[in-house]
């Protein structure tokens, strides 16, 4: 019988996003619990024998009791065994959430923590070999360590006690993808592929990267990605993997990503040079789906008059009401608000007021804080003088 299971990771339960509105925040938190339930439903639908979550199930070891209790409640509803691997966010250290009284008191019988490299038979003939994080900053390739132990075990037991299918469950960045070449904890892809080639393991379930990623060329090393989006920089999150290892373990596994995520983090830069651009952006933002589960980070390029700036502010204000969150992408924003004559003509300022206006307009051209303050002062002048119109 082929081994079929569900591969997920990085649920990051308890994750909060402070830039979310006070109404969106609880929904965002609830969505992560909902993801667990979706996983349960999917596992049942697909006939998966078990679920393996490859690390960072919890956002932190210090999450509140409520987060733990709710997560365990949802996990308990999953109809198959669930194996949780401690990752870098929730390492199995002395302060680990997995060792907390709350967790131990509430953990349902189908939920197991992969506490060591000792192989665990997750379903008949399918064994999990875990590389749990025992501290926040390991100084070695944990996967390599577990593989090496397994090699010895196999040499001793002649492979009969462990197998035939073996799945390495690990968490961390693979050296191929790591931006930090000196990271001692990076998982060496060569080691994984070597073990795969030697038939030590048949699939490597990885966590840590939030986007679905097929690593290397074997088709057996996968990041499942986070089941629910957590940040803007995720390319392909919101999925879980349904993995099927055929009876003939030499044959390639079938790995199918399934979208279950409902939230999106979107990061965009818009050109803004005219009223038309503003109108276009307003329409665009208005027309999108699932706005209440979309978090936007918007950057702007271009230059606007004070009046147009006021309009874009209104558009953003309205978007804030609609969307789960709207942030300004300061780093990617290059928006010059240049007061134009038109801004002031209708004010009909004369005399000393006109002179003050001219002075501020000159100051508004200055770089840095002085210019910003001067532009603010100009906007204020426009507002106050405008409100004084008869």
């Amino acid at each position, binding site marked *: 019988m082929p081994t079929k299971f569900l591969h997920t990771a990085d649920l990051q339960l308890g994750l909060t996003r402070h830039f979310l509105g006070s109404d969106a925040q609880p929904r965002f938190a609830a969505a992560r619990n909902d993801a667990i339930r979706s996983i349960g439903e999917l596992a049942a639908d697909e006939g998966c024998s078990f679920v393996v979550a490859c690390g960072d199930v919890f956002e932190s070891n*210090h999450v*509140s009791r409520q987060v733990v209790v709710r997560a365990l409640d949802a996990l308990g509803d999953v109809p198959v065994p669930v194996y949780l691997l401690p990752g870098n966010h929730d390492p199995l250290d002395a302060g*680990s959430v997995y060792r907390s009284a709350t967790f131990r008191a509430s953990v349902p019988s189908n939920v197991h923590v992969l506490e060591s490299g000792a192989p665990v038979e997750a379903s008949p003939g399918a064994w999990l070999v875990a590389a749990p994080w025992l501290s*926040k900053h390991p100084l070695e390739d944990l996967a390599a360590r577990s593989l090496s132990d397994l090699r010895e075990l196999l040499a001793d037991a002649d492979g009969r006690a462990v197998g035939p299918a073996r799945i390495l469950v690990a968490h961390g960045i693979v050296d191929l993808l790591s931006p930090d070449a000196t990271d001692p904890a990076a998982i060496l892809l060569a080691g994984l592929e070597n073990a795969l080639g030697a038939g030590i393991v048949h699939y490597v379930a990885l966590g840590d990267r939030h986007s679905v990623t097929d690593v290397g060329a074997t088709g057996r090393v996968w990041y499942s990605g986070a089941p629910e989006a957590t940040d803007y920089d995720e390319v392909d999150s919101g999925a879980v993997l349904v993995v099927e290892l055929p009876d003939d373990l030499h044959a390639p596994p079938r790995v199918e990503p399934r979208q279950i995520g409902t939230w999106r983090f979107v990061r965009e830069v818009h050109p803004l040079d005219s009223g038309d651009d503003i109108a276009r952006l307003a329409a665009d933002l208005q027309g999108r789906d699932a706005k209440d589960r979309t978090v936007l980070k918007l950057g702007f390029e271009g230059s606007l008059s004070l009046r147009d700036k006021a309009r874009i502010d209104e558009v953003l204000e309205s978007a804030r009401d609609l969307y789960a969150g709207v942030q300004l992408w300061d780093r990617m924003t290059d928006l010059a608000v240049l007061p134009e004559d038109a801004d002031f003509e209708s004010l009909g300022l004369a005399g*000393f007021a006109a*002179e003050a206006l001219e002075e501020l307009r000159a100051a508004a051209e200055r770089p840095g804080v002085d210019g910003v303050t001067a532009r603010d002062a100009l906007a204020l002048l426009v507002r106050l*003088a405008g409100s004084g119109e008869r």
Partner: protein
Amino acid sequence: MRLHRITLRNFRGVVEHDVELAEAGVTIIEGDNETGKSSLAEGVDLILEFPDSSKHRRIKAVMPSGADVGPEVAIAMSVGDCRFSYAKRWLRQPQTTLTITEPAPEQLTGTAAHERVREILDTHADLALWRALRLEQGVDLAQAGLDESRSLMRALDAASGSSSADDDADDLVRRVDDEFERYLTSTGRPNKELRERRETADAARRHVVEIEHAIEDLDSDIARHERLTRQLAAYSPRHEEQERRIAELELAQDEIAALESGAAQLGEKVKVAGLELEQARGDVAARSQLAKLASERELECEALARELDGAKRELQEKDAERGALRQALDTTRTELAAAEEMLAVAEADLAYHNDSLWRDTMRTRHEAVLAAQEQRTDADEFLEACRIDTDLLGRIEDAERALVEARAVLGANETGVRLESLVDQTVEIGGSEHRLAPGDVIEKPVSGQLEINLPGVMRLLVAAGADTRDLAAEVAAAEAERDRLLRAAGAEDVRDAREQQKRRDSMEQAREEAARTLETNLRDLTPEEMSAKLERLNEKLATYEAERQPGDDLPSDLESAEAAAAAARDAVGAARAALEAAQAALDQARAEQDASGKAAAASEALLAQKLLDRDAVSSELAASRADTADDALDAALAVAESRLRAAETELAAAQSELAARNPEATAASLAGATSALERLQDEQARDAKELHQLEGRLAAGGEDGLYDRLVGAQTTYERLEAEAAAMERRAAAAGLLHDALHRHRDEARRRYRAPLEEKIEQLGRIVFGDDLDVELGADLRIARRTLDGVTVPFSSLSTGAREQLCAIERLAGAALVSADGGAPVIFDDALGYSDPERLRRLGAVISLAGRDGQVLLLTCNPDRYSHVGDARLVRLVRQDPPPEVL
């Protein structure tokens, strides 16, 4: 804005006034008090401001008393390009009519009319100027609020070359000020709310940091936990290692213990062999000792026997010696007795000579005593007889001197007689006969009478004068006195008296001398005792001489007696010393004899003892030898020595083996290993304890939900920080705008000042002279006036000067804005403080101002404005209320 006509009806006390004003120039409205002059201006104010429906207190105030009719005002005026008539009645049957004639005819009533007029005014008129240009008597002499006037500002603006000031600028400034005050204090610092926002945000940030620290603490606990766990795991192999080492060392130590006990046994064996050797040596030594003792005893006895013989001989010698010494002692004693006898004789002789010497002395003293006694008796006898003394002698000498003096006086005065004999003859002078040879001269004084008889020849009687007689009497008295004294002294004359005194002195001296001699020689004796003593001495000496044995010669003198006595004493001393020496020698001999006797006895006894001893030792030696021969003893000694050497060799071998094992090092290593194990156990226990504590802390801390709290705190902080930053940004903007606006306004006002100043000075110089300078403040009011080089603040000027300047200022302001329509200048009963000359000059100014705009002079005293040239004069009279209704 120009007023052409003002009509009041039922307005306060006014029944009706209808005043037509000069189109341009000056209108003087003259009337007594309470004729309603001031009401004209007030009427214009009310009609322009209040709709006919108004029940404002100012409207009610102008309701005529005692008539149930509403006050009415009608005006004809031009504002901008509009010219219109405007009438209003309030309170009773309110009504408003407006008839615009220019630019296009238009007729309105009611609210529409009111609003239309407001619109026209707002667009073209400057009501602030209208109010500012009024100068009223009885109201404080305030300067015109020209800075409120838009048209003046525009005019000033135009004059200063700037663009036109906006009507709304002041509104704008107010709004900016309001905005500024929302965030900042008047000094531009953050106000309470802004500060609190900032503080709240900072507090939130601190809270985040606190939670971060708590998480860091927790993390460090976790790290520590991990380290401890690893450390504890490492203890076990270290334990085993240590225990194994201890076991090895203990084994080595057991072996060493066995070696040590073997060595100890060998040591014991050596000790025993040593003791045996000692025993054998002792036996040999005892034997030789005993033999030696026996021979010693023999020798000793022989020596003692010899000694005893000697002692006995010596004792006999001592006996003989003692007898000889006793005889010698007796001889010496006899010699001493003889010497002592001789000494007695010598001492008696010496005493004799001493007594003899004493008697001689005594005798000499006795003789001196006798002589002195005699001398004293003589002196005493003389002195007894002598009558003169020092005192008496003195008196005698005084009397003699007195006599000599008297005589001298008499001599000087008395008559003298000089007789010179020419032949030998006898002459009787004063009863005495003188024999005279030729050439002899006799001179005689004559004090009384002197009778000179040349016997046979003549008797010559010479008598002295009466004076001479007195003097002579004095001489006689002195003489008698002297003689009396001489008699008392028993002296013949003065010289004798002196002699006698001398003798008396020597006798007294002799008596004292005799007394001294007696005292010296008698000492404690009476002369009788002395005699007796001398007598006894003589007897004693005679007796000794008689008794002295004739055999021996009595020494001739004291010295030889003394020498003899000394010799005798020496002889006695020598004899006595010899006796003592003999006695001592005898005593010595006796003692020696006794000692020798005792020594001999002791020797004898000792010898007897030694002989017993000798016999005992000899028998012991014989017995011992009979038991073991001397040879046997020597052989046993040799055996014991070789046995000991063997045992010692064995022991040395065992000890060197033991030393090779280094027992101290082994013991030290074992102690070290044991304490290291204990330390290891302690460390392990400590680590285990700490681990336990950490677990407790982690269990507590891990359940704290720190992550959620951190996120919550961060969220709060970011919100508060954003709010605070936004508010600070708004505050900065408001501050900047506020600053820019105010700065430019102040600057603008400074610029505006110049034309107004110029105009005021231009008009003012007419009144005050060419030296006038005025300085305006930012509010366009006159701050200082300079006249003839003296600068005085406006408020310090005299009332008159202030009034004049207020008038000039208004006229100047009006002149500046006249091109723009301006407003009429109204002086209501003003210039009451000005002197006639100033009034005259002001008149000229008013005339000048009237060329450009309307000037309305309300006065009860038309003379004040008699110098105003071309003016329309309107006279108002007090009216009784007529029942007229519009």
